[in-house]
């Protein structure tokens, strides 16, 4: 390792900088979380630890319903996006048109959320009118379906890239070897390739859950007949302003994300050491 001859202070300075960046990024979140545990709320001189605002959250049926919808939406989005992402990554490996395909796959990342959401809204309105006038169907009325489509568009590029990175380390000879041993294409994928890209699929799942869980703009435009946790928080804040409950809600969202990311990192680390 080159580091053995490097200046030890340069190395320490890098660590210090890293820690500073993390603290700077996280401190607003931590600040909010601290307030959420204070019985006296924001700006109070005293600090008395309490969980009462969190208990209040779980007694509020609107919030519970929003949480339920949020998790259900995240689940459906994962179920739809993962196979699509894996298939796209497989396709990318075999296609001759790599650059155009990549641009196409990543395009949703470069369209601003509100533009994309508004465009989808208008599009679904038109589709919805067409389907109800022509077939009497309500397929594209604002609903879970439209929200799922909006979120899938948002999550797919991430799943695609994460899966592609793990797939790149896989040696295709193994699929050929499996086929020659008598495996069908599907068995070869399931027995040989999938176990080796599992880590990527797992990260992609966690990524999708977090993206879906925290998504506001698209969901707010495209949902129909329900609130998710982020849309509920925003409309609550707009109506009531910041209350101790809002802090608790923010705390809940942040902690859920941190727990998921932490779990993924821990698992990845344990796999690295194994």
């Amino acid at each position, binding site marked *: 390792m080159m580091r053995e001859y490097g200046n030890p202070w340069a190395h320490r300075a890098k660590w210090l900088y890293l820690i500073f960046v993390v603290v700077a990024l996280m401190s607003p979140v931590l600040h909010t979380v601290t307030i959420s545990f204070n019985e006296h709320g924001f700006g109070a001189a005293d600090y008395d630890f309490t969980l009462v605002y969190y208990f209040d959250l779980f007694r509020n049926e609107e919030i519970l319903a929003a949480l339920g919808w949020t998790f259900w939406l995240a689940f459906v989005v994962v179920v739809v996006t993962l196979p699509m992402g894996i298939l796209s990554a497989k396709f990318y490996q075999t296609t001759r048109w790599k650059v155009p395909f990549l641009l196409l796959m990543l395009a949703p990342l470069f369209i601003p959320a509100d533009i994309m959401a508004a465009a989808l809204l208008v599009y679904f309105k038109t589709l919805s009118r067409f389907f109800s006038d022509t077939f009497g169907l309500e397929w594209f009325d604002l609903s879970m379906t439209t929200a799922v489509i909006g979120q899938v568009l948002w999550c797919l590029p991430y799943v695609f890239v994460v899966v592609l990175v793990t797939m790149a380390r896989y040696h295709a000879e193994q699929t050929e070897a499996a086929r020659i*041993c008598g495996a069908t294409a599907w068995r070869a994928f399931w027995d040989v390739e999938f176990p080796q890209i599992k880590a990527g699929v797992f990260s992609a799942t966690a990524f999708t859950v977090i993206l879906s869980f925290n998504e506001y703009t698209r969901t707010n435009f495209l949902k129909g007949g329900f609130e998710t946790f982020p849309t509920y928080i925003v409309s609550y804040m707009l109506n009531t302003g910041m209350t101790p409950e809002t802090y608790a809600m923010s705390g809940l969202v942040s902690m859920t994300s941190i727990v998921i990311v932490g779990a993924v990192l821990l698992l990845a680390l344990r796999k690295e050491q194994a």
Partner: protein
Amino acid sequence: MSNSVLAVEATGIAKSYGTVQALKPTDLRIEPNEYYVLLGPSGGGKTTTLRLIAGLVRPTAGRISIYGQDVTELAPDKRSTSMVFQSYALFPHMTVEENVAYGLTLRRMPRDEIRAEVSRMLDLVGLNGYDNRRPHELSGGQQQRVQLARSLVLHSDILLLDEPLAALDAKLRKDMCLELKNIQKTVGVTFVHVTHNQEEAMTVADRIGLVAGGELVEQGSPEAIYNRPEKRFTADFIGENNIFDGTATGAGLDIGGRVLGLPTPAETGREISLSVRSEDMRLLDGEPKPEGWQALSGTLIDKVYLGLIGSSVVRLESGQDITVRQVGAMSSGEVGASVTVAWPTEAGRIHLS
């Protein structure tokens, strides 16, 4: 299986990728229990040929039969072939035992039968007791043995080997060659082996097919292909031959001013080549040319001592470089000295194409 049926019979098989012809229409006939080697330079089409037999690529023309059954339309898992790859082909998340057992597991063979069969195969390839290792814990040679066991355990009609020893060092490759040959004799299965290494091919093969430029150039036993090459390309690729191109004058070959004696007469006016093995040539140290020999003079430009042989390079007056190899001896001449190279006329071989 009756001897009249061929293990592999390919008729007019060809493979193109767009405008690139990886393999021109080729006929290939491999006998049962034969150790057949496809030898040739990289990019010559030998691996394509092997992958066509395996079903990993689909021919753009032609038919392939294995023991009389037309397999042209069959996917690799539906063919009675198994294959050893150059590297990276073991399943890294499985143990040695699971790797070897994989094909049998797919066949839903009872567990204890699988175990018995796997341990028999690991014995055969000399990996007894390695059952629970992971591929990354094995050396390159051991990994190739596991691949071999994984292929043999299927008892396929044809075992295909794609550069199986290319990633191994020279000493190990030599040992593995002999072992492959022995295993093939023991199990009595048709082996088709692809390599670019001539020594490897000569060691294992019953018959060598020389593949280059997308064509099967020539085939024959190692001895025949080395001593009696028919094509100029073969003489150039196999062994270390000196080749003279020129026009036949009946009993001689006109190489531009000089006429060399031919071992047998050739049709006058025809463009032909004459090849002479470097070990059949000698440097004459001042002594006169023996009766029935051909001689050319030139300048000694290089001398290499390789232990068993000494190799000298002589630049002829025409500018052509000639290699002379002598067992256990070095030419006494100094680099830069004028020398004469000579060879018995009957050591020459005529190539019409």
